[in-house]
């Protein structure tokens, strides 16, 4: 049974009149509206004007070649499906045409049935292509607007609550007993953690929608480490933990997003501070060989139990321990891993319980 073609428009571009007429008759019988053109320029003009769903293009024509037409139409007409008509022995050029954006080819001579089958398949391909594009666009739009929604609708109330707590402190603080002020402080701290978690979560979403770590430039990992260590030095000092860096010689450049990488290292150093008792030591090292630039962040802290180690990069996973005074977002290491893999690198952890933890990072040399 012949399926109805819903009046879809097909354009035939061929310099041989008998072929144009044959195709027209066959396809019109199947319910398509058919337009024809006898040469390239005419074909491109008609296509631009009538935006057909499907175009058959003869590869060998005097003047403008079929290949040129394919290139122009693939760019100009959204969602168009291009099919090349090609002489018996020119499969090679058909393959080239498909690289340039053609979907299929029809070798000459062809029967009406073959023509109908190829046209039908082309139309089906077109529907799928459009559906896939619409879904992709919808998904992207939702992801982006969700980020905007979260960043505004979740942050603003938190900011406002924080501001109210501040006003309470400013207004009533001098009259409040220390115990009440302590409660205020605890509330503020919990809200700060929540705000922090939202920020980290937003960072993850931004990586997934390709909005973070996009600004890649040649940089030196030692500079990233130096900046991170400078930033974290006060926290180390407060916790009475020593921090040292070690770098091997003039290091080759790495193509990366400096801000994101700094945050990877500040995150790792921050973790180390959290799990290392006073008097401990953190070392940040970088080395390189012919293929990779490697870095490590080691501490002399409490370590991670072997059975927990495989999960630490999972979102919201936390190693519960007595040593943990401040609650983290549970997203820090997930963030680190995403950023590192956005640079084509890997990150892994090794740990000896009671002796310390080492995070190993490996980036391919660019």
């Amino acid at each position: 049974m012949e399926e109805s073609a819903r009046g879809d428009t097909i354009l035939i571009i061929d310099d041989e009149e008998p072929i144009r007429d044959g195709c027209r008759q066959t396809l019109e019988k199947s319910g398509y509206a058919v337009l024809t053109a006898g040469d390239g320029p005419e074909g491109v003009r008609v296509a631009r004007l009538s935006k057909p769903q499907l175009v058959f293009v003869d590869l060998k024509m005097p003047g403008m070649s079929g290949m040129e037409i394919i290139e122009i139409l693939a760019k100009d007409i959204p969602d168009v499906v291009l099919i090349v008509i090609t002489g018996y022995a020119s499969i090679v050029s058909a393959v080239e045409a498909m690289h340039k954006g053609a979907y299929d080819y029809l070798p000459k001579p062809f029967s009406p049935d073959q023509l109908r089958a190829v046209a039908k398949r082309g139309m089906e391909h077109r529907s799928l292509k459009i559906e896939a594009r619409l879904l992709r666009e919808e998904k992207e739009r939702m992801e982006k607007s969700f980020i905007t929604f979260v960043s505004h609708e979740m942050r603003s109330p938190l900011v406002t609550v924080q501001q109210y707590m501040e006003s309470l402190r400013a207004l009533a603080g001098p009259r409040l007993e220390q115990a009440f002020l302590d409660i205020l402080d605890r509330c503020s701290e919990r809200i700060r953690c929540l705000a922090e978690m939202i920020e980290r979560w937003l960072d993850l979403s931004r990586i997934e929608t390709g909005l973070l770590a996009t600004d890649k430039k040649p940089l030196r990992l030692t500079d990233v480490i130096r900046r991170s260590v400078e930033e974290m030095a006060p926290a180390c000092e407060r916790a009475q933990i020593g921090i040292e860096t070690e770098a091997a010689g003039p290091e080759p450049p790495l193509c990366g997003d400096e801000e994101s990488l700094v945050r990877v290292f500040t995150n790792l150093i921050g973790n180390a501070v959290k799990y290392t008792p006073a008097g401990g030591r953190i070392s940040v090292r970088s080395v390189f060989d012919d293929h990779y630039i490697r870095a490590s962040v080691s501490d002399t802290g409490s370590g991670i139990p072997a059975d927990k180690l495989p999960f630490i990069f999972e979102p919201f996973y936390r190693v519960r321990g007595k040593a943990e005074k401040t609650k983290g977002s549970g997203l820090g290491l997930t963030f680190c891993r995403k950023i590192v893999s956005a640079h084509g690198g890997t990150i892994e952890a090794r740990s000896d319980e009671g002796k310390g933890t080492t995070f190993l990072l490996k980036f391919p040399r660019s």
Partner: protein
Amino acid sequence: MTTKKKILLIDDDSDFLLATKLILESGGYEVFMAEDGKSGVDMAKSVRPDLAIVDMMMETWGEGFNVVSKLRASEGGKNMPLIMLSAVDLQGPLQSFEPPDESQTVNMVLHKPIMAADLLRKVETLLRYA
């Protein structure tokens, strides 16, 4: 008796306005609030504030800069200390956002939320050197 210094607050979040107003009042300032750019600019004309605090993101992104531009153009606004409030990470969008012209410059940008003591100290400093 000294008259209180007047501060104009412009932000589209009414709770944020109130919370900030309370902080500023605890510091001895008289505070006027506006919930959108237009009424803020109108209020500046009648109140003639000594300092204004403007949220950067109202209605549209960067709306705050338009408000700043209008405040700067209004009478007495050219040298008035202006604080811009931002809820965005300063590392991000703001850094790449350039005020189109000099009329939109502010004296200070503060990141929300603002600690009470910090806000009062900065307002006092700006007013002293105004």
